[in-house]
């Protein structure tokens, strides 16, 4: 079960259930415990422990063999959180807890599940770092929630439990009880820790709690299978899940390596064309802003981002001395530089999932055509590209102020740019209070010899649409 989980913005996706205290990847292990939370954690775990003693005293005790098996499974599933491609971590712990509720119904109906729930506090990184309070808080929350689910299952009449498939319904009250108790305690601790309003956190958390319902069905079924077939069924069930986990982990690794590959390429590109440092990354960021604003899904956003990151990749194939040539290019040389767009296009076409939007790389194809059925991605990249070209400072000229860039984008909306993309970008930037352009540029690099600015200068590679208008725009901005 997601013991202490974090309500966090998952990059590129919605809100996900995430472990809160342990973020191994970013290494931001919280060791400070605010006083209120310390008090809260102590009382929750004290209540859970008191319940263990009370139930053990009352009896009957749960049978030992299944108890050991489920405790081990619970601890394993806490450690075997599955990282989904969306960036969310889910732990299959509630499946195990629900199965134990079913198995212990006849003997030790409450004590068994409570112990299994408490076992989820045995999280190795917590124990290793001796953050006992986190371990106790996790155990207490999970124990109480599992106990509530067990209580809800005990109320279900035996006639319903014995009837198949009607007994599946019996999982629902348990799931509801678990979600209510777990979310309540989690929200309280989260609100105490981060000083955020309880209701707000609860809303976010409940929105992602639906998966517990599905887990409850699986757990119920697994419990029945354990009663009918024995522990082997559990092993058979867990193997494919572990395989899936392994594959998801490998997926993340391959993805990180792929990102690293792109990173190196972009760096190479920037050493080659030194006037456009950071350009590609900024274009990708603006493109993602527009995509998000237009309601793209995660997969489509990712595709847009990759296309934006690679929209200039063809520059790799253009001789460096042309890209960095100070002074005007001859007509031939200019044609050669422009050829990078065709090369980028070809290279993007090599990559299957970018093939439809390979025209992102090609300024002839990104001119807005009203009513055409072309994909919108190239238009998005065109707007992002143009905006960054106007608002970034190069060694040979200053950036335009943001207001001028906005005016220019608006003026060309409908002719050169897709108006929808233009308005989306302006909306997002204004909402995020992001200002780029004159006065807001990142640090400027001075080059030993500055090339002449103007149409045809390779330094203006990405600016050629504005080449002619740049002078007058700068003047009007100055005035």
């Amino acid at each position, binding site marked *: 079960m997601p013991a202490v989980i974090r309500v966090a913005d998952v990059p590129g996706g919605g809100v996900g259930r995430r472990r809160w205290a342990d973020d191994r990847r970013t290494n931001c292990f919280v060791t400070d415990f605010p006083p209120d939370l310390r008090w809260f954690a102590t009382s929750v775990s004290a209540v859970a422990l008191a319940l263990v003693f009370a139930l053990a005293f009352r009896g009957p005790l749960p049978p030992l063999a299944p108890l050991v098996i489920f405790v081990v499974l619970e601890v394993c599933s806490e450690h075997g959180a599955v990282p989904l491609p969306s960036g969310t971590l889910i732990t299959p712990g509630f499946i195990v807890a629900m199965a134990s509720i079913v198995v212990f119904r006849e003997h030790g109906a409450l004590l068994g599940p409570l112990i299994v729930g408490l076992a989820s506090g045995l999280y190795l990184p917590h124990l290793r770092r001796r953050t006992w309070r986190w371990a106790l808080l996790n155990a207490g929350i999970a124990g109480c929630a599992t106990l509530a689910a067990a209580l809800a299952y005990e109320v279900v009449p035996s006639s319903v439990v014995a009837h*198949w498939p009607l007994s599946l319904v019996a999982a629902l009250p348990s799931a509801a009880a678990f979600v209510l108790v777990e979310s309540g305690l989690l929200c309280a601790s989260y609100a105490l820790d981060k000083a955020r309003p309880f209701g707000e956190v609860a809303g976010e958390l409940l929105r992602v709690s639906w998966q517990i319902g599905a887990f409850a069905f699986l757990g119920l079924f697994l419990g029945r299978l354990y009663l009918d077939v024995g522990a082997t069924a559990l092993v058979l069930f867990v193997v494919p899940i572990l395989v899936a986990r392994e594959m998801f982990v490998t997926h993340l690794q391959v993805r990180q390596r792929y990102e690293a590959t792109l990173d190196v390429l972009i760096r190479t590109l920037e050493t080659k064309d030194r006037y456009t440092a950071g350009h590609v990354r900024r274009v990708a960021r603006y493109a993602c802003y527009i995509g998000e604003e237009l309601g793209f899904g995660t997969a489509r956003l990712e595709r847009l981002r990759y296309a934006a990151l690679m929209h200039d990749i063809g520059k790799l194939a253009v001789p460096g001395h042309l890209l960095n040539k100070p002074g005007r290019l001859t007509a031939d040389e200019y044609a050669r530089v422009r050829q990078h767009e065709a090369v980028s296009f070809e290279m993007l076409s090599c990559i299957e999932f970018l093939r439809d939007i390979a025209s992102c790389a090609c300024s002839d194809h990104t001119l807005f055509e009203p009513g055409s059925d072309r994909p919108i991605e190239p238009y998005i990249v065109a707007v992002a590209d143009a905006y960054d070209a106007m608002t970034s400072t190069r060694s040979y000229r200053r950036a335009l102020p943001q207001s001028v860039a906005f005016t220019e984008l608006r003026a060309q909306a409908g002719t050169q740019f897709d108006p929808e993309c233009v308005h989306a970008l302006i909306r997002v930037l204004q909402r995020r209070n992001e200002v780029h352009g004159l006065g807001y540029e990142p640090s400027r690099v001075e080059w030993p010899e500055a090339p002449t600015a103007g149409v045809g200068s390779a330094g203006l590679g990405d600016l050629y649409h504005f080449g002619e208008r740049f002078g007058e725009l700068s003047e009007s901005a100055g005035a």
Partner: protein
Amino acid sequence: VSLKRGNVANGLRPVGPTVPEFNLATAARVGGVVVAFSIVLTAAAMSGHRGLATLAVFATAIAVGEIMWMAVDEDIALPTSFAMFPVVAVAAGAGAFAATVTVGSIVGVMLVATRTYNRAVTIMERLLAAAVAFAAFHIVLGAFVHRNAVGPMIVALAASELGIFVVDECVRAMRGQRSSLEARQGLLAWLALGSSGVLMALGYRGTDGHGAYGLSGVALFATPLIAAVYSFERLHAITRISRQTIDALAAAPELGGLSTIGHAQRVATTTSDISRILGLSHAQIDALDTAARLHHLGVVTLPADAIATSSYEDVAEMTGEMLRGIDALAAARAIIEGDTGLPSAVLRVANKYDHITGGNDRRGVMAVAALRSGADDVYDVVVVEALARVVARRVELQTV
């Protein structure tokens, strides 16, 4: 500037013969199968043939499983229908089993949209696997006294899955394909398929009169397998994107006119031919293939006037510099920079061979002679002799 697609001489790697991609079209096919079979199902259920309705569900599951693959590697994929065979073996007699599996497999195989996929052979292979699964289950179960007990049932079902695995491996060997266990993911895929198959069959039939959940059992216990299939699909997708990006990069020098068209592709073909003769490992062949595609990439960072006079080592050094820091390409980079002994020697020889022949194998014998003489440089003798064999075979093929 012409923008026609397909100008890239150094195009995509050929897509593996047995790995269909899961996309919208596939999803539509799966949907179609489900709809068609639901009609059969409704008709059967309404006319009171419950048994027939169950078999229709199984046939649907087999057809869907045939369309949804677990992609293990670029050229190895396992259909999820392998997990369904034991379930049907538990549920039906010989006649019903044969009918269900045949209908399901044929429908599924016919709907897979891959050009390089021999449908007739694949159907035969599936039917053979199914027959072995059925026989193995009944023979092993027959050897026990308490046939309905948990232990015997699990052993018999495991034997059934093992039978499928053996048939699949044999067919692979006969087709000259690699074993599915060669890639690490292969074992994992079989584990997921096998355990899910056994679990679904147990959930359907139960043991000793307990836990016979019927179709709902199969459906619920398919969920871990579905999660596994999804994970394989995602991994396959990102691996593909990653490989294609490297291919796109490899095309950069040619597209920029800095290298002769098709050079990288031809060097890759030659290195893979040579490394097979030399018996290099799968990992080495893979790295060498990538190295061959990328070995010329560094030329894009050379100044224009230096390109013509640059040596292989100059370009290799620049390429190595470019690829520094890319973990995924570390092995390929080591080969390009000349740090790996034999694979590096293979790449050097293949590159020189392509420079001499310019892609025309008729000049191959002359090129080999030049390499043997070591007129301008010394090349690894073993590699050059392997190249001689490759050339001899190519010349032979051309004259035939």
